[in-house]
């Protein structure tokens, strides 16, 4: 059984990572042949650094990803706070479902409806370029929002609701109690939400395709347009660099977390779980009697 489970994991990992490894391998190919590996070279990396078009697209993509993720994180955290404090259960449920719509909606529907809205409003306002960076940003923030809310809301729920009360008892103003007590508690959720929003915005094609104007082309759109002829291996080189950068970032963040409070947090969590189990057992035991 153990061997079976191990092979299963190996298989899953292989299926996930072999395509990436093949892409990395062919970024070092000396010709643009994707069938045969003709020789090792850094040729496509040199090409990549010479290609102004690719770099402009990469810059655009990063600008868009960071700004939309930041905006979505700010709005999303505020929204979760509001939802958490809401008294009416019905209203909370309705608003939660409403904010989830952009996530459930197929990208193409979101993209087209957003484009129609922007063009309609743009025509009303009489602007010449109806689709530009700002429309793209609005669209990205829209589809990023539910992911942030989804990550932050559970943190609010996990937080002891007496903590802010205690803080205010001890002399905090409501604002202080939010920044000093609640925010640190929900920080992990905010960071996860931010990262998710960032990655989603980074690789979004469909919505960007409909909502981008003439002055702002992102990397996925550029790569798609290359399929008229063929995608050149300098894109493989770029992807390889991006994967390495993300990998380095992940390792770094894991290392730093592990060093300062990863262990402590784990400890905390375990004792909390134990407590919960204990109380539940007691409750159940009482019920049976």
């Amino acid at each position, binding site marked *: 059984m153990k061997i079976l489970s191990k092979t299963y994991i190996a298989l899953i990992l292989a299926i996930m990572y072999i395509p990436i490894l093949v892409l990395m391998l062919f970024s070092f190919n000396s010709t643009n042949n994707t069938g045969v590996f003709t020789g090792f070279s850094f040729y496509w990396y040199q090409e990549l650094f010479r290609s102004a078009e690719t770099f402009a697209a990469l810059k655009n993509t990063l600008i868009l990803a960071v*700004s939309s993720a930041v905006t979505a994180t700010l709005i999303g955290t505020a929204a979760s706070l509001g939802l958490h404090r809401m008294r009416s259960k019905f209203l909370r449920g309705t608003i939660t479902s409403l904010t989830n719509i952009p996530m459930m909606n197929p990208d193409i529907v979101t993209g087209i409806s957003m484009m129609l809205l922007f063009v309609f409003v743009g025509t009303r306002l009489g602007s010449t370029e109806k689709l530009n960076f700002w429309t793209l940003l609005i669209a990205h923030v829209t589809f990023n929002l539910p992911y942030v809310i989804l990550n932050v809301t559970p943190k609010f729920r996990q937080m002891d609701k007496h903590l802010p009360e205690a803080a205010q008892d001890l002399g905090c103003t409501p604002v202080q109690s939010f920044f000093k007590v609640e925010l640190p508690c929900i920080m992990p959720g905010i960071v996860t939400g931010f990262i998710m929003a960032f990655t989603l915005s980074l690789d979004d094609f469909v919505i960007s395709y409909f909502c981008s104007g003439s002055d702002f082309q992102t990397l996925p759109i550029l790569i798609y347009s290359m399929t008229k002829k063929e995608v050149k291996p300098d894109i493989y080189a770029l992807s390889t660099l991006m994967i390495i950068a993300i990998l380095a970032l992940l390792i770094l963040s894991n290392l730093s977390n592990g060093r300062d409070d990863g262990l402590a947090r784990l400890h905390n969590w375990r004792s909390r779980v134990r407590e919960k189990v204990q109380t539940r057992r007691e409750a159940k035991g009482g019920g049976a009697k």
Partner: protein
Amino acid sequence: MKRSFRFLFLMAASLMLLIMLVSCDGKDTITLNVYNWGEYISDGSEGTLDVNAAFEEYYYETYGQKVKVNYTTYASNEDMYAKLRSGSTGYDIVIPSEYMIQRMINEGMLEELDFDNIPNFEYIAPEFRNQYYDPDNLYSVPYTYGMVGIIYNTKMVDEADIGSWDLLWNEKYTGKILQFNNARDAFGTAMYYQGIDVNTKDRAQWEIAVNLLKQQKPLVQGYVMDEVFNKMKGESAAIAPYYAGDYLTMYDSNDALAFYYPEEGTNVFVDAMCIPKGSRQKNVAEAYINFMLTEEIAVANAEYIGYASPNLLVRESEDYIAYMEDWHEDAMTILYPDTASVPTQYYHMLDAETQAISNELWEQLKIESSVGDTVHVIALVIVVICTAFFLWRFILKKYRTSQY
């Protein structure tokens, strides 16, 4: 606590910085928005000339005005059309194919060009002026053209079998043949083969073509567009209809590939530069078009793209001929065949009714048993198992709760 503040502050700061980055455009610089096919201009990669940068420099030197070429790309005529049609009219130059130009002219989407600003138009070969799509040549200036032919692998295909479209229907090469994955070009292969007018409105003719394609389907390895490059280069397929210019690109990686124009006739396309309605920099756009027709630039583009150029300066340029012949010894005859030996025909814009016939028959062809019955059976089994599982759990739960 401090950490969370720092994090928030960092986020806000980076946001401000980025927004500043986006919005800091020089006021005295004109932006020219060029919308072109992907990989369709000499862009400075692999030691070629960067045409857009050269234009910015040229314009500044000639007119003393700074111009920034904002170059974006699309993958098909229809993509470009949808984008323009959506009302986002920020483009100054687009480069559609001939049938799309006809449609855009009909729908009033193109601006008439001022040919006084495009004196280099005189270098365009006479056979590319006043074509059907733009009879008085008011709207468009040809950029590239090309023809469809058949690419085959000399290691796998017998030389005796070549010459006609019937190679695509040759049972000897079952599983080694590729076909276009778009209705117009795929029907085209069958129609040229049978000598049917590709712009016919007669449903019966379209049905003859679709029957031929259905007959071909078991022989075909796949319906492809740009995958054709890897399949032909990697020799997983032996025969494919595609464009002459793209054949040269494939030949670059695999010199066992060869090319011919079918004797029955074939398709020719022209991609031409146009200025869409709503352009705010019409003069600069015309200067750009004119610049693209100068010898140095046109040669650089023709060498980069590998498609044929309608520009006479290019065809007579010794550098260009030497470059192309170094690429492939017959490159010049492949790209610029004797027009008498290969009958060619343009695709016209189909009217709505014919378009509907074409779509319907194409769907018929693609849907028909494209997934085997086994796939259906497996999918059905999975659905049944899932339903049974949830039903069973539901019943179990009901049963358990009733016990208490």
